């Protein structure tokens, strides 16, 4: 791997936004392919972040600054990336269900998804059920990701799954659920395709679902 790519990965892991952006531009100026910079620089760095986060070697603040550094680098690369789906891993519609305003868990999962090369459409918080379905249809999404932090909003996840069935998209869209009160048993009881305990595992699970 070229030195500049290793440096991009290293600076991303340290959360150095400006350095990552500068190095991405340097790599472009040196003639490196933007997809290679994305994969071997930014995503490689996020892979390390995800692994360390899962192993409790780093924590939420470090993940957030790394993700922001990745975003800064991605902005530099965007004009040079081939096609409009450069990463090509798949498309995920993600949001916190209606009635729930919590977004940090959701955002962490999105960062991990993006770190694995998924395109994520973030619908935000307090998302109406029909919005998940409508967006999944319009965007031809592979996965819908549902987040909830309240025991009172967990049942809304079941409503989204039911709505996906009624809309006739359930056989082509996988549905993942997560959030502090959500359990594997609950996920199974509502017919979700996947539940994971943490954000890095969610990204790995999404890859599994896509390749299954």
């Amino acid at each position, binding site marked *: 791997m070229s030195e500049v790519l290793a440096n991009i990965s290293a600076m991303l892991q340290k959360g150095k936004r400006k350095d990552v952006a500068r190095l991405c531009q340097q790599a472009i100026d040196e003639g490196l392919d933007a997809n290679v910079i994305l994969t071997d620089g930014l995503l490689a760095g996020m892979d390390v972040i995800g692994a360390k986060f899962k192993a409790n070697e780093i*924590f939420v603040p470090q993940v957030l600054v790394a993700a*922001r550094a990745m975003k800064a680098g991605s902005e530099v690369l965007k004009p040079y990336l081939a096609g409009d789906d450069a990463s090509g891993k798949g498309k995920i519609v993600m949001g916190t269900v209606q009635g729930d305003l919590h977004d940090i868990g959701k955002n962490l999962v999105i960062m991990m998804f993006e770190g694995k090369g998924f395109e994520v459409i973030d619908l935000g918080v307090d998302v109406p059920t029909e919005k998940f379905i409508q967006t999944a249809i319009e965007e031809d999404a592979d996965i819908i990701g549902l987040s909830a932090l309240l*025991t009172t909003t967990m*049942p809304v996840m079941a409503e989204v799954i039911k709505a996906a069935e009624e809309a006739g998209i359930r056989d082509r869209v996988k549905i993942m659920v997560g959030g502090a*009160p*959500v359990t594997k048993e609950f996920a199974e009881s509502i017919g979700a395709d996947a539940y994971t305990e943490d954000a890095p595992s969610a990204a790995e699970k999404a890859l599994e679902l896509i390749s299954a």
Partner: protein
Amino acid sequence: MNSMERVVMALNHQEPDRVPVYPLLAGVSRHLIGANCREWSTDADTCVKGLLKAKEEYELDCIVTLIDLSVECSAWGQELIYPENEAAHPNYRNQVIEDEDSYDKIQYVDYRTCDRMMMHIDVCRKLVEAAKGEYPVVAFVFGPLGTLSMLRNQEEMYVDCIEQPEVVHDAAGVITQVLKEYCDALLATGVQGIMFDTLFASGSIMSKDMWDELEGDLVQELAEFVHSKGAMVMIHNCGGKIYFDAQIRRMHPEAISFLYPPDDCADFAECKEKYGDVTTLIGCVAPTTATVGTPEKLEAECKESIDAMAKGGGFILATGCELISPNAFPHAKHMVEIAKTYGAYKK
């Protein structure tokens, strides 16, 4: 044996007649009196009425005055939204600390100018009067860093914790001075203790070193103050892998209310072995189980906590966090029954 005697024995690491129990029914108590969330969390009489109704109907051994996590931040002028059916929360589009350069907006304020803090003090006074010493009333206070996080978008604050930790610490320090005066007023109502929510002392959020650097000395100051008034310090932290050791070193709490085993314990039994002599353990039934779980699963979780932590006292059966759905009411009743039967100490 009344609830006060039962809880005091447990806190003294003795075995009372049975394990004390309190499924954490706070805001949900509004359903018992036909009030909405806004009314319950803004009117002291309504709040007291709900909490007392829950205490009476579910035979709780203790009342913890968890109103919501936005009481403290309102002292600094944080705009709040009061939905009818969920807890009050900041208007996340209009936070007092709008960017990383605005932490100096956090200056000393007189708690007496804060309606929500004054309401909470009023609630505590009325609850203590109603309790007549027959059960403990514990005032719930969000810690300095928690309060700061409600004034600054939480995600942004995490970034600030990395990029300008001294600024974050200084602002939390100013909040601490106000919280100290607030705690003084709460204690003057006769509550038996203060339960501090130390949300960030958790492996789910930040490293132990970072927490200690940002909040350790501040919660120590608050805990020393509460202890100096002859009252108890309790901790509530429902995060994963919480830092018992660091918090105990700083706060010497009489009790810790928690949901998951701490970062240095594999399970609740190890937690009892390691910390059971140092502090009283409160927990650890999952709110999800106590809301949507089957009766069998709830019973299994209650028994797991009792089996692991009740021996020798120093244990209170509780949910690891607040129950917010009225679906939890039958489960709360069930929990109390389990405490009365399976949780009875054999003499």
